[in-house]
């Protein structure tokens, strides 16, 4: 006999945020236009301060300080449900995900599989414990129909006591006292039912079917009939994907690499469940860390790859390996997301001989291999820090008008408009060199003759804090020395008005 388990993840967006970081302060998930965000969900700390769904973010900020606000991301919620479904696949072969307005969760058919796990109670405990390690909180509902299980779990998520309805005869007594608002019916219908003084599922069941049908259409009756097992209710089957991908948005900026261990644990637990469901392991894990690009230019993501000699899936062991790699990683900018990708699944039993991936052979540099491949190879050998390409940047300050970009990381963030740069020397010194002076006139292998200029550049005053990027106030000149060299030099506008060499023309 079918037995459905509904797992409801109350306030899923908040769970996603707190799953990624240990955060005990007030936190809200907002949606709506960027200028006027509205609170959609909040955690306990925030609601204790009086924050509630529907408030404007500005109002919430007035109530709770400091408040972390995260933008709602429906895609991430779906990803999370799929990730969870992939994990839960180890417990049941028939799983469906559901995401109806504010209620998200999974439906698992456990009637078929519970005996494999030693009965319903044991299965229940395993799922419950597993969810905790993944960082999810869920309410459970068991019933003979999926719809009833869903409603029961929803009721419990709202704090309403309600028995399971494992037997079909228990369905109506269990559902009748439940308030209509948890049915997930559309708001106008619920509003109308309320205005008619109808409060519970039982109140609606007591009305003549034809009159109800005329007023509210068939949708309500269909839902009720499915819940009460008067109508079959086939559920779509979740098909587990062939590869694993999961991503966590970090609700607050993470600047220390080791802080990433907490979310990494979550991801590895999830991966473990996923691999168990497929009886597989993996030898290659790729962690991708994306960075905050708010303050400076966009920063390419940091990729940390774990290569293993033999397929593995044990979360604890993988976490140890990752921690070792992480210790050698410095974050160029605070991290904002952490993602885990596994494309290669292997049978868990099989073993590889070498600890390192095979070294690239000469054949990799064959004639048709493009520069990209060369770059990849170089990259693999030298590490991403050593392979660059130059990119023009739109900035008046000469030393910031170019930047070195890691060659492989194609972030698509190249500056689109290459500015109409005036004639600039081919070689610009990254750090201008002070020039010797005689009678305040610059000298470089002899007295310098000023040929063009002054070109005055005063820019960058807004760059604060980082000493490497600071404002410039200079008069630039093209100068020539007795040896016939053409130089690019400047004089500081501020006292003591020193001269510097900044570049060479070819």
């Amino acid at each position, binding site marked *: 006999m079918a037995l459905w388990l509904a797992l409801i993840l109350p306030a899923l967006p908040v769970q996603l945020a707190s799953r990624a970081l240990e955060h005990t302060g007030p936190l809200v998930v907002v949606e709506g236009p960027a200028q006027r965000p509205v609170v959609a969900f909040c955690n306990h700390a925030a609601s204790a301060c009086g924050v509630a769904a529907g408030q404007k973010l500005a109002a919430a900020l007035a*109530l709770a300080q400091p408040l972390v606000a995260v933008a709602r991301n429906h895609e991430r919620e779906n990803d999370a449900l799929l990730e969870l479904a992939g994990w839960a696949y180890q417990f049941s072969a028939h799983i469906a995900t559901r995401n109806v307005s504010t209620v998200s969760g999974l439906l698992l058919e456990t009637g078929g599989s519970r005996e494999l796990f030693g009965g319903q109670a044991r299965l229940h405990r395993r799922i419950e414990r597993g969810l905790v390690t993944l960082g999810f909180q869920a309410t459970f509902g068991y019933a003979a129909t999926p719809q009833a299980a869903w409603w029961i779990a929803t009721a419990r998520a709202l704090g309403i006591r309600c028995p399971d309805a494992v037997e079909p005869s228990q369905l109506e007594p269990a559902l009748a006292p439940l308030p209509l608002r948890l049915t997930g019916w559309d708001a106008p219908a619920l509003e109308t039912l309320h205005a008619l003084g109808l409060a519970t599922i039982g109140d609606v069941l007591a009305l*003549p079917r034809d009159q109800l049908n005329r007023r509210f259409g068939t949708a309500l009756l269909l839902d009720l009939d499915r819940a009460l097992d008067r109508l079959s209710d086939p559920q779509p089957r979740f098909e587990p994907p062939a590869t694993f991908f999961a991503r966590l948005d970090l609700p607050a900026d993470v600047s220390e690499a080791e802080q990433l261990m907490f979310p990494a644990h979550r991801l590895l637990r999830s991966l473990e469940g996923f691999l168990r469901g497929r009886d597989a392991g993996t030898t290659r894990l790729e962690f991708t860390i994306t960075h905050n690009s708010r303050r400076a230019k966009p920063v390419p993501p940091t990729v940390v790859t774990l290569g293993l000699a033999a397929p593995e899936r044990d979360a604890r062991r993988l976490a140890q390996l990752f921690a070792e790699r992480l210790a050698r990683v410095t974050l160029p900018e605070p991290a904002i997301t952490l993602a885990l990708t596994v494309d290669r699944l292997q049978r868990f039993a099989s073993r590889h001989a070498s600890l390192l991936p095979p070294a690239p052979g000469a054949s990799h540099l064959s004639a048709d291999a493009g520069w990209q491949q060369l770059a990849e190879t170089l990259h693999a050998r030298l590490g991403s820090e050593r392979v660059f390409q130059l990119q023009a940047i739109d900035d008046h300050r000469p030393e910031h008008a170019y930047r070195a970009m890691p060659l492989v990381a194609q972030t698509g963030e190249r500056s689109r408009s290459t500015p109409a740069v005036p004639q600039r020397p081919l070689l610009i010194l990254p750090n201008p060199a002070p020039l010797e002076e005689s009678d305040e006139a610059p000298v470089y292998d002899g007295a310098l003759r000023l040929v063009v200029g002054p070109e*005055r*550049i005063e820019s960058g005053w807004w760059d604060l804090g980082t000493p490497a990027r600071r404002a410039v106030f200079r008069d630039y000149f093209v100068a020539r020395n007795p040896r016939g060299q053409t130089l690019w030099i400047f004089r500081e506008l501020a006292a003591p008005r020193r001269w510097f060499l900044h570049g060479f023309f070819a």
Partner: protein
Amino acid sequence: MQVSYAELHCISNFSFLRGASHPEEMIGRALALGYSGLAITDDCSFAGSARAHLCLQETIETYPAARAFKLIHGTEIQLTDGPRLVLLVTSRHGYGNLSQLITLARRAAIKGTYRLTRGDVANNLALLDDCLGLLIPPPHAPDRTDAEHARWLAQILPGRSWIACELTRGPDDAAHLIAVQAMARQAGLPLVASGDVHMHVRGRKRLQDALTAVRHKLPLAQCGARLFANAERYLRPLYRLGRIYPAGLLAETLAIAERCNFSLAELRYEYPEEVVPAGETPATYLRRVTYEEAVSRRYPQGIPEPVHKQIEHELQIIADLQYEPYFLTVYDIVRHARSLNILCQGRGSAANSAVCYCLGITEVDPARRVLLFERFISKERNEPPDIDVDFEHQRREEVMQYIYKKYGRDRAALTAALHTYRPRGALRDIGKTLGLSLDQVDKLAKTMAWWDGRKIQRERLLEAGFDPDNPLIAQVVELAQELVGFPRHLSQHSGGFVIARDRLDRMVPIENAAMDERTVIQWDKDDLDALGLLKIDVLAIGMLSCIRRALDHINGFYSRQPQAAPAPGFIHRRGERPLELATIPREDDRVYAMLCNGDSLGVFQVESRAQMNMLPRLRPKKFYDLVIEVAIVRPGPIQGGMVHPYLKRRQKLEPVTYPSPEVKKVLERTLGVSIFQEQVMQLAVVAAGFTPGEADKLRRAMAAWKRKGGIGPFRDKLINGMLARGYTAEYAEQIYRQIQGFGEYGFPESHAVSFALLVYSSSWLKCHEPAAFCAALLDSQPLGFYAPAQIVRDAQKHGVEMQPIDIAKSDWNCALEPSTENPGRPAVRLGLELVSGFNEAAAQRIVAARNERAFVDVADVSRRACLDRGEINALAAADAFASLIGHRRKALWAALGLAADAPRTASLTAGAPIRESQVDLLPPSEGQNIVADYERTSLTLRRHPLALLRRRFDSMRLVPAAGINGTRHKQSIRTTGIVTCRQRPSTASGVTFVTLEDETGTINVVVWRTTAEEYRRELLGSTLLTVYGHVERIETESVPVIHVIARRLVDHSALLGRLTVRSHDFH
């Protein structure tokens, strides 16, 4: 060598988000540097020209040498398919031409942009007469296109065009000079130096960069080449220019300046002519209509002698100043409004005159009231008369359309409202450009509640958790501070009209407003004022609509009810003239008695809580007391500390004294305390020796507070003047402080008088015809401080019978019907307008169908009134079918049962009613009904929701509002009520006023800052708020003024369940 130079290419901050200095700063700096002249050449605009002109005029007064300085008017225009040009005007004719050309370019594009092609210029060559042209070459080396542009310019402006050479320390200025010289040679054009000036000093570079970033909607770090590479686009000292430019190019600037001889002072307002019939002069016509209207409208029994003398006196002054066409223009508009039965009322300096009373521009009767016309209009002050006319809110548009139709769109236009940066907006924009996150920007902007005034305060930043010494925050604050007061954009003024005799666009450019088919001129009312041009403000007042509706209700009811007994004191009788604004009985004692009790809910201007508390203390007994009441509860007098002295003197707790007979003359009518703006100016004249002209400048400085930063420059003159005339230093300081406090909030007596008349009229209606007044207030929503629920409850308190919304009886608007208890008196039948989600057209169909025959059931209503499902459901939920089929749930069930397509295909389904078994729906409880009433109609005629909770409140020992009246001063108390209003006035430091309401009345709660901070959440979030605190009681001759001072707040909103009541919150 002495260098002479006139800057010919300079944009101010009226080239929005480009220029980084005010026109005044530009003029000031150019004068200080010894420039021979300066052209303000804003981007296709003359918006900053009035400011520049005025600044120069003022400078000349203190520094006559500035007379030699040449202010040139011009504009910079980027042609769509051609070069960037600077066009300068040489004469009035040229000014009119260029103004027209700008209009052409602006009207061709959406608000804030313009579009002008070479073709447009070629087709309107006449518009370049008396204009000079400068071609601004691009910064890069000139190419073939540039050369072609130069030849084109030489062709269309032969002998009047130049190529501008702008050397601003670019990559290679020497090469640029050579290139433009070659280009000039080829085109046969002379070369002239100019500076592409964007700021008056180089220190504004950071702000200029920030403005550029705001314009591009990018953070500064991403602006790159969109920013200028350096800070050279400022007004450079002459010696520097001498080093940069060849002497010939500098000399050429003077030659050009020499040819530009136009001053804005030449603009003279020319009045419309059609207001005067052929064969008459404005003077003869004004005299004729004044006397004709006086006899027919005001004095059928003959004009009293003093009035006659007054009219003659005023006509003389008007004639001397040649203001007749202005009065006649206003008269024409008012007369037209009256012919459409639109209520209106004039106010302002010239409005309160015997002439305006005769012409019907105002109802303020000179025979009854102290009117000093010269107080309002004077010969010495070269100030245009000022008449604002208020019209009924809903019908003002008709008046505006009349003006457009009569004078044409090329002669009439709305003045601009210039929006300037305030701290919030400045912080937001600067914060964004400097890369703060949206959250931070929001938080930062939020620290600047408007009551912080115009300065960004350190303490506020600290409170919000920002470190003011953090370099980034410091930079944001510093730049935002500079940005405050910068013009941001022009939008249309709510109703300030300019009307020209000929084409308006030859006086000032006209551009598109945001609304379709609306245009706005490029000057705001301050500019027009400063140039001495006339404007008419066509404004809207909701209370005028309300008064007209009340009058219609009254006249309708008594003409339908033969046996009706009108209110005592009501002169109207059946068959006589209907009641009008002008025939409302005057100086009625019961009206004043009502006001003395603070019983003023719904009354114009004096219904706020502060006013209600002031009324029992001021105890108005006559009309002039209302004039003072209107003016005194305002930020100006409160900040100037005038309220308490006046109250004390009025209550005879303090002797009324005057420091001199001159001052007595000015302040006698306000017991020695200056309350009105006019009094302040007169004081400056009689006590400090200001000339009327100087006093007028003082007034303008007060009005332009936001722009110029106060009246500081007048301080010495004022205080020294008063000391010299024997006043004590203390008194002089006091007067100075008062003037300062007035700031922009100063309220003129001339306006207060007109407002007071509406206060009196609405009070009379409330006192004698409360049913009509209540119905009219409900019809006029949204209006005033109070929600429909409170208006209805107040009417019930005054004995008005209220009848519920009923499908069989209600119209769209509220209506008067004979009271069931006393058929001679009116009761209010609530209108369908109160049903949320309903519409007027549906209501009209219901009335029409009902007049044919009565409705029998819900389906009948739906069918015959052709209502759709939403409409019929709205009625059912609002309990409008109660008389037809019973409680609202039954009605709703029936409504839902109608076939979905029933109404639109009425005849098809009409014959086949659906038979259904009876469904037993539980009737709603009283509480559920109350909640549903509030949800659907925002009020209830059942019991107050708190009446249901009273037993519970009693057990919690919460005292009802009525119980508070019997408490002692300082007594501890706890009470609760629904929050109807939260207010945090600018004048009270940190105190929040909360008004609570229960079934017995209202409770005034005062929450001091520390309590407010401790209970912030309860204060802001509660619907039902319980207050622990003590009573503060001020005895007056009538009702005591009682406040509850809160010590602790508790949120009990949960007790209300689903009840939704919205509070009015003011900050």
